[in-house]
């Protein structure tokens, strides 16, 4: 039994924790929250400089080949530090789409630039309200040109290119689309978490290059979402852990009725519940990391379980962190809302809990056919 990260990856985690505590401090996260920039470009360059954008990319394409468990470790730290960068969009979704579905030429063209951070990618799938299973793809490609509207697109304003789901042949397919093309109109949308950009993209006859087999767009997206679910679960676990640490510290320092509020069972039991939810989520995420890094057949189940568990834990941890801080927790100045916003943002990214719960049970039914 070796159900833990290796010593090397534990060192990576320490390194990432130290790096991000300096470069992605609450103060710098707030610059994105309150400023005009849609992401922290300096942090992005720093993370690229550490080689982390290519953590799971093979060396052939310029990656660091740390493996998916290495990427999981980094994801947890990104979540812990609320890193205001398009790490998930460009790495978990765009790079992964190319790794999973791209031709050799597409990999050689795109991956090295994604690894250096020179180019930023994202996934453009949603077209309004609904979970991944309810998306009726209206965007379409005719004669190699894409037209349609995608909303919301995470990091859509920032990205140079997008992996777009569009109807080409009567069934959805994936396309690589350069967002710098004049036929693309980008509109930034007000985001629940302003430290993470959301945009609306309108395409009018934009050149679209097929990615992966025609007509298999929805299957490919599902495979991509499964992979991203594990990685985002680690971000959520990192966020939940950060909330627990904040609440714990506050509860030991804040006095009321002549004693630290952390000595009241109303607070102790609440935080014990947060701890339990976070540990269960962490254990489920570890199983997801195992399934992702070994390409196990169990990945769809492991990913959905990690996703459901982590979404629940981060939501609980972030709201109880606000509650533990009392009135101060409700202020703009306190950092609680940064996590509260991020928790819900990550809960919506790649589909909300009801979708993943349904997917989990569907996969369990499939694997345990009567």
């Amino acid at each position, binding site marked *: *039994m070796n*159900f833990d990260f290796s010593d090397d990856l534990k060192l990576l985690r320490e390194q990432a924790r130290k790096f991000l505590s300096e470069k992605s401090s609450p103060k710098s996260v707030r610059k994105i929250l309150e400023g005009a920039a849609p992401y922290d470009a300096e942090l992005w360059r720093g993370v690229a400089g550490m080689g982390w954008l290519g953590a799971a990319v093979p060396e052939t394409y310029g990656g660091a080949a740390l493996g998916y468990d290495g990427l999981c470790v980094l994801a947890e730290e990104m979540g812990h530090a609320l890193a205001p960068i398009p790490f998930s969009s460009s790495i978990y979704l765009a790079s992964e789409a190319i790794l999973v579905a791209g031709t050799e030429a597409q990999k050689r063209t795109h991956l090295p630039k994604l690894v250096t951070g020179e180019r930023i990618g994202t996934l453009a799938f949603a077209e309004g309200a609904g979970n991944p299973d309810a998306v009726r793809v209206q965007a379409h490609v005719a004669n190699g040109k894409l037209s349609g509207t995608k909303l919301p697109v995470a990091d859509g304003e920032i990205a140079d290119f997008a992996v777009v789901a569009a109807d080409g042949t009567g069934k959805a397919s994936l396309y690589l689309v350069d967002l710098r093309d004049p036929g693309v109109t980008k509109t930034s949308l007000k985001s629940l978490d302003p430290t993470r950009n959301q945009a609306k993209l309108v395409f009018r006859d934009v050149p679209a290059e097929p990615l992966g087999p025609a007509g298999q767009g929805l299957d490919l997206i599902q495979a991509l979402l499964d992979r991203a679910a594990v990685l985002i679960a680690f971000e959520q676990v990192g966020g939940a852990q950060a909330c627990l640490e904040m609440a714990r510290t506050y509860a*030991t320092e804040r006095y009321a009725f002549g004693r630290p509020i952390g000595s009241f069972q109303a607070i102790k*039991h609440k*935080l014990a519940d947060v701890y339990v939810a976070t540990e269960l989520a962490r254990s*489920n995420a570890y199983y997801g990391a195992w399934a992702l890094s*070994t390409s196990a057949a169990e990945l769809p189940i492991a990913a*959905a379980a990690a996703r459901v568990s982590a979404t629940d834990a981060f939501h609980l941890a972030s709201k109880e962190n606000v509650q533990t801080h009392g009135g101060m927790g409700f202020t703009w100045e306190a950092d609680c809302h940064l996590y509260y916003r991020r928790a819900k943002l990550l809960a919506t990214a790649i589909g909300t809990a009801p979708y993943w719960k*349904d997917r*989990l049970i569907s996969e369990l039914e499939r694997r345990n056919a009567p």
Partner: protein
Amino acid sequence: MDFEDTPEEAAFRAEVRAFLDRNAERKSEAKSFHRGRYIPEHNIPETVRAAKQWQAKKADAGFAGITWPRQWGGRGGTPVQQVIYGQEEQNYVVPRGVFEIGLGMCIPVLMVYGTPEHLERHVRPAMRGEEIWCQLFSEPSAGSDLAGLRTRAVRDGDDWVVNGQKIWTSGAHFSNYGILVTRTDPDVPKHAGLTFFFVDMKSPGIEVRRIKQISGGSNFNEVFFTDVRVPDSQRLGKVGDGWKVSITTLMTERLAVGDAPGPDFDDIFALARTLELDAGPAIRNPAVREKLADWYVKTQGLKYTKFRTMTALSRGETPGPEASITKLVSASKLQDIASYGIDLLGMAGAVMDPEVAPMQAWFQEALLYAPGLRIAGGSDEILRNIIAERVLGLPADIRIDKDVPFSQLKTGKR
């Protein structure tokens, strides 16, 4: 990351499986649904007899005292081997619920505080299932607040004379020995005045009365002590050190307590798939699916938390506090699953006739015994306190009775 055993662990696992295959029925191959395998019926002498036979077989094969020293008949094995044995045994139909307290708590505390003569006399018979031990801790006015116990022990020559009452003592009615914590000095603060013993349950003056539980079963007892003489040679730890010895015992208890026994995710999943309602199988209902998913991730979360614990053990590390969450999560989950299983049956959920209710009324039975699991071995509230204080480092509760002599403490009507 992997789930592979080391070569040594794999060899041990193979040995365990071979032993179990030879001597027990695999659950997956069990001919019919076997409710009794989960609900030990302690009031039936056959259960105790079967458990004793099974324990002797385990001991003969070297699987009874896996981590215990060879000197006392143990295997001298590792905690990982203990975990592996447990993982494998849970796949088989074997008698449970008779020896867990003795082997999980009583003998281990004897090993810390007992003399070589005690160990020579008691370890082997306990390990072989010839003698059963119970734990005489809780009292009518001292449950979660164990240190508030009142059973008095007064020194008289080479003996102590014990008077008082214990309660919730599982298996006292078939036990040969018990570990006992008593008050020997009421005029000092409560934690300081306790002393720990072990006692022969056949001693004159001990009376065991069965308690009937919500579920109708009677697994535990009240134990009355009237001028019971306990030799000072059966004292464990110093006079006044009883709290320290009790804590040692409770720490091993929390490691020993496993998942709550009863219907789990697989069972409610199976029920939801097979139960045909007007609109089709219950599992087609989105609300049902969401509930199932929640229980699945809790069940798996606990499973993989144990894998993390085992990894720490396997690396020779001391497991982290994550081990403490198992009972807290699984007891409530069991209660919820039992309740929802009944809800799925609709109006028929009220029937607990085993001939009529699905799975021989397992969900109904579990609903009735689940409350006990949230209380026994550290209530939900105590476990949350432990997590908050020992894991998160939050301040201890303010104890207004801390510096007050026990004899001057306020008491309530109950």
